[in-house]
């Protein structure tokens, strides 16, 4: 706390009347302010990370998961993602399971803040779509059902 007052005084007072500044203090002050601002800007990361080893991919498709996935899709995904290759807000889902690994897809759903912060492919998509993929409050189990629904959409049996 103490450091902020120095910054405050050096910026406000010296800045206001413009006189008598000691560069050392001013520089130090500016640096401290930058640090304080940077610290403040650190975003909380919500979401659950999914590890590759946790995902079981089996055939034939699990019919219940496909059905669950479809109903979650209707409510939480359909507004932005078509089942074709047409892009609306986000890319269409056709062939998404062929382009991306299951772990990528599931993290994009459950852990999107981390993906947009760290994953180059996710960042590329943000540049194209200009809308951050939202965290739609989907659990890991529901994300797995969505993946099953995507696999079915891509013609898997």
């Amino acid at each position, binding site marked *: 706390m103490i450091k902020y*007052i120095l910054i405050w005084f050096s910026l406000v007072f010296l800045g206001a009347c413009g006189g008598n500044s000691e560069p050392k203090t001013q520089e130090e002050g500016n640096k401290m302010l930058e640090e304080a601002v940077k610290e403040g800007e650190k975003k909380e990361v919500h979401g659950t990370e999914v590890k590759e080893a946790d995902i079981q991919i089996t055939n034939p498709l699990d019919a219940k998961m496909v059905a669950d996935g479809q109903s979650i899709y209707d409510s939480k995904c359909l507004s932005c993602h078509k089942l074709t290759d047409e892009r609306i807000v986000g890319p269409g889902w056709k062939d998404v399971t062929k382009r991306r690994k299951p772990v990528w897809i599931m993290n994009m759903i459950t852990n999107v803040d981390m993906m947009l912060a760290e994953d180059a492919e996710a960042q590329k998509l943000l540049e194209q779509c200009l809308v951050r993929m939202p965290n739609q409050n989907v659990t890991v189990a529901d994300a797995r059902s969505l993946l099953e629904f995507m696999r079915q959409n891509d013609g898997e049996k």
Partner: protein
Amino acid sequence: MKKNRFLVVGLLASLVLLTTWFSGCKPKGGASQAVSGDAASKVYVAPGKHDEFYNIVSGGFNGQMGIYGLPSGRLFRIVPVFSTFPENGYGYSEESKAMLNTSHGFVPWDDLHHIALSVTKGEHDGRWAFGNANNTPRIGRVDLSTFRTTEIIEIPNSSGNHSSPFITENSEYVVAGTRFSYPLDAEGDNPDVAIDSYKENFKATASFVRADAPGKMEIAFQILLPGVNLDLSRAGKGPSKDWFFFSCYNSEQANTLLEVNASQKDKDFIVAVNWKKCEEYAKQGKGKVKKVRYAHNVLDEKTHTATSTIKTEVIVLDPRELKDIVYLIPCPKSPHGCDTDPSGEFIVGSGKLAAVIPVFSFKKIQAAIAAKTYEGEYDGIPVIKYDAALHGEVQKPGLGPLHTEFDDKGNAYTSFFVSSEIVKWSLKDLKVLDRVPTYYSIGHLCVPGGPTSKPHGKYVIAYNKITKDRYLPTGPELTQSAQLYSIDGDKMKLLLDFPTVGEPHYAEAIPASLIKDKSLKIFKIEENQHPYVTKSEKDAKVVREGNQVHVYMTSVRSHFVPDNIEGVKMGDEVYFHVTNLEQDWDVPHGFAVKGANNAEILIMPGETQTLKWTPSRVGVVAIYCTDFCSALHQEMQGYVRVSPAGSDRPLKFSTGAKKKAEDPSASIKK
């Protein structure tokens, strides 16, 4: 720490320099001299950092609560309780209108004076904030996980609900007392009588409202009292937890020119109520059931919709018959504040016109009742002898004492309106320890946790009635203002002025840690049970029911479904039921339609809200999202086509439809 010490030395040195330099640069302002040099560091909350306390502040005549952070004084949110709020559609949306229903019909504006935060075992628990409507008597509950008004109950047989909504030790009851006595006949009606028949006909009531079950507020019982003006109140705690204490003025029972006629007597009363006993008597059927009409309004969290129910009965207890429920304690000169200390042993009365602050002892009150040390009766109620109830008086505290809060070190802080100051005094020996000026004319004051069994100390906040020269002027109407003082040390120190909305009366402050982690982030779309919810774009539709057109609409970044609607006709009432499909924190969407005679709506993630619109002319009308939601927010728009009455144009709706065959009416003919 070493670094800090170095900085402190440096800081002090620069302060000396700055003070000298500052005084040369600008003339000294009288009031600014009251701030000591390290004040800024004590209230500075760095960008992205959180405040330590929530300050929940009544908005007075705006009928709202303001939510501020302390020590920064930053305003986070305005919570509408008893007034409509165009910003988020409260009182305008079809869902919320019922919240403002009363036995007098829809009341769009009231006057909210006091806050009571819920407590468990006398300590803040962070569940609810209650507020009172002073004009059309009501009590409202704000849920502190959503910061929304979720329940309002009207108080029958009441007028000027001022001594409200103060709360008992385990949030069993919030109370309501009449500031304006009025005629009540045997049936509980307000008969047509002469105003100057006050002494024969006018009565006060104190109501106890069950508060600990959300959605189930009810008036457990009312106590019929002589026609005095009940002013403020506090529950006991610890040893006095079964009791409630109300201050009153106008024991003269004047009905005109009260500033003179209600200031005649040397003493008015503290009304001590044994609510536990009242509760027993009410359960035993010892009250009279009166026919009344009052509204109980509840917001359903699943349908996002409020309903209003009119109730018709109330139990009234008469202390002239039930002799051991109410006692009067003389209190000098029109008492205002009536505050109980953290231990529950002391009750502090503040006579607005008195030269002392009397401090009453709960033990002595009990002993006086046991020994019947009475000086007589007032309208059939025993009056305890002043000296028998008195612990002691704070001598020469200041002018115009109003309210008292407490810290965690055995000190009391009393606000003085006339001498415009806060005076700190010791509960132990009733000696004045310190005083600081306020700018100007303080009303209420607040210490975090100050009214509870466990005050958090650290600050006292003054809520002032006059701001005058403290801020940049804005015409005849100036900002309202609060002032933050540190009470860590022996001396109180002014740290900060901060503007407030409305006129702040009572406020409470609570550690942020008791609330912030419980904050609701979204409404789960799966749990939305609104009758007009649209849970998927697939289900979006427009349905005609006679002249009502219901639009089942979804919003997501950055489009509405549907966004093109045709077939609406003049004479139709259009209901836009907009569901926000987002499930991400902090992504509301707005909705507005040109020419709407009510307001816009703001829809939180997972919520459904309805805006009613009656088209006023034929033509094409734009709709759009009013909350900047995304990079393509400006594109989040659509059109509604309004055709003449009697047109046979069918309802048609779409989003993203490609233009098909040529429609002869599609282009404007010249």
